[in-house]
């Protein structure tokens, strides 16, 4: 019973926080709402018996990835001018059409989902089980994921390095 209540609270928090994140003009504000949303989702994970996923959600999503965002936003140094620009872009005329599309999609999804029923189990699936599955039947997926990460690593290194080099070149040109 308690779980159900917690679930609805967490769900509400997640949804509200996400809406807020999507509509903020200031990037840092949006980001913080997003972190809240992620944390709320982590709570849901915990409630439906996936504590390991919940932990990862907090550590990697809310922690690592969001911090990346923060760093980049800091590097970009958008400031007050950026906020004004964002507000100008968020006119109803711009979001009306997409909103209709999204709502239609949502309705469809809901109608499909409404066919399913039954509860989720409360017995937790432990990290050990996840690990066994990962390095058992899913070992190929792990390999692929590792390659993807490697590619991401190389890619971001490459992009970032060129960013710095260009910076240096421009500085030299300036002098």
């Amino acid at each position: 019973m308690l779980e159900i209540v917690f679930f609805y609270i967490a769900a509400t928090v997640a949804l509200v926080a996400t809406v807020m994140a999507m509509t903020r003009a200031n990037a840092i504000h949006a980001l913080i709402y997003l972190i809240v949303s992620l944390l709320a989702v982590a709570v849901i994970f915990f409630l439906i018996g996936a504590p390991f996923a919940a932990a990862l959600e907090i550590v990697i999503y809310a922690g690592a990835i969001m911090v990346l965002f923060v760093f980049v936003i800091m590097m970009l140094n958008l400031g007050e001018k950026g906020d004004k620009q964002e507000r100008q872009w968020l006119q109803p005329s711009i979001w009306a059409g997409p909103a209709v599309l999204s709502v239609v999609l949502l309705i469809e999804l809901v109608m499909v989902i409404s066919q399913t029923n039954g509860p989720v189990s409360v017995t937790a699936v432990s990290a050990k089980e996840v690990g066994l599955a990962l390095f058992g039947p899913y070992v190929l997926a792990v390999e692929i994921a590792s390659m993807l990460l490697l590619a991401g690593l190389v890619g971001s290194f490459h992009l970032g390095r060129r960013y710095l080099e260009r910076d240096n070149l421009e500085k030299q040109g300036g002098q």
Partner: protein
Amino acid sequence: MDGLNIPLNHILLVSSLLFAIGMLGLMIRRNIIFILMSLEVMLNAAALAFVAAGAHWGQPDGQVVFMLILTVAAAEVAVGLGLVLQVQKRFKTLDMDHANRMQG
């Protein structure tokens, strides 16, 4: 399994809502940073659906896929943010509508 447990379709509903919101964000924002954030929201929504499904059958597979999504998100953000820096450097703006030339 008593009827007091969380119903699966409610979780899926939350997931769908998150997804739709993320998609809306994707469509209405012009700033690349926000676009990336929207993507994160959508990925997260998908992950939620997987985990919920896994929990429904009491299997670890849902969480395995969640981890895969996590890796995808991480890689995507790493490259995406690298690109953001490049775009900002080149076009002096983060407006996607301005950076729409395919070449160059």
